[in-house]
């Protein structure tokens, strides 16, 4: 993927009823099953965004499949401790679409005083090509505010920390029982 994700824009959506917001990790695209994960031609795609400077958490991330063409192009990633991941992406070309989540104080399923934020990637660039199945690291980035109060934007600055090894280690609990657990452990062992 390009070294810099470029400038998109962030905006707060209309206020979501804080008592009724239900978070579905990995929603916003097609749901995947164990059968999907077990297919031999799929990849584990993962990356990291440091959201400390963002107005909200990251609770989902979505990519758009641009090749091969499909009328259902959107894939939702799971998010865990600022690591975004997908366990069953097929070979093709994908473009970062958006990510986002709630602000406010999290009380179980509730977000006190929260608003939903969606950060949109530009419609050009920000692509990822998956040519063969396996592990694909998108990179680690830090969320940076840009633009003005009236024209809010963001940028994602590539960072070296956390390392890929740290990111994989962080994600490992989410891979328990899947075919990726052993492969990720092997990858962690190889990385310095």
């Amino acid at each position, binding site marked *: 993927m390009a070294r810099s994700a470029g400038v998109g824009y962030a905006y707060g959506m209309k206020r979501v009823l804080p008592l009724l917001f239900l978070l579905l990790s990995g929603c916003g695209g097609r749901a995947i099953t164990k059968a999907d994960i077990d297919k031999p031609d799929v990849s584990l795609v993962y990356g990291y965004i440091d959201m400390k400077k963002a107005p909200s958490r990251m609770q989902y991330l979505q990519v758009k499949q*641009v090749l091969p*063409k499909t009328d259902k192009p959107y894939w939702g990633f799971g998010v865990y401790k600022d690591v975004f991941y997908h366990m069953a992406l097929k070979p093709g070309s994908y473009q970062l679409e958006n990510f986002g989540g709630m602000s406010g104080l999290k009380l179980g399923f509730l977000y006190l005083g929260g608003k939903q934020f969606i950060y949109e990637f530009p*419609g*050009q*660039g*920000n*692509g990822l090509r998956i040519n063969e199945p396996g592990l694909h690291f998108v990179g680690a980035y830090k969320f940076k505010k840009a633009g003005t109060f009236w024209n809010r934007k963001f940028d994602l600055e590539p960072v070296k920390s956390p390392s890929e090894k740290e990111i994989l280690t962080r994600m490992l609990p989410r891979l328990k029982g899947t075919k990726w657990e052993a492969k990720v452990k092997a990858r962690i062992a190889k990385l310095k």
Partner: protein
Amino acid sequence: MKRLLLLLPLLGCAGLIPPARGPAGPGKVAVTGKVRLSPPLHKLDQDLKGLGSERVRNKLYLVVDGGRIEATLGKPFSVHMDRKPFTVTGGELFVTTTKRAYFPGGLKVDVRPDDRAVYIGTIVYHRDEFFNVTKVTIEDDGEQGRARKALARAASTRTP
């Protein structure tokens, strides 16, 4: 509603140069040409939803001095502009109702004081699947009618 509002500045012809009807008036020149993408736009490349969004399907907007030329991809356009040299400073295409792909400019079009019509050729934006522009070329299709060829010169072939 927000998507409609976002499209209105364009659909409301803010800066859009209207298509030519009849001969060019005094001080004006008819400008003809074409724009296409290579590879061509697939019907699924644009994810357009919302009232009025179909208006921008398959259209690339060339940004020129004094406004925008709405070009249907692969089809000739014709507009009347002030009779003086101008520059195509870039292009825009709606990928979704809120996102655009941007195309490089720097194409200078020579218009002479006695020109009544000029033909700029076919601007071809070569791109990858992410709408990154890899190269810009100008083709001379041989179509000109009575228009003088004023083939645009590409000042840059690099993605902005």
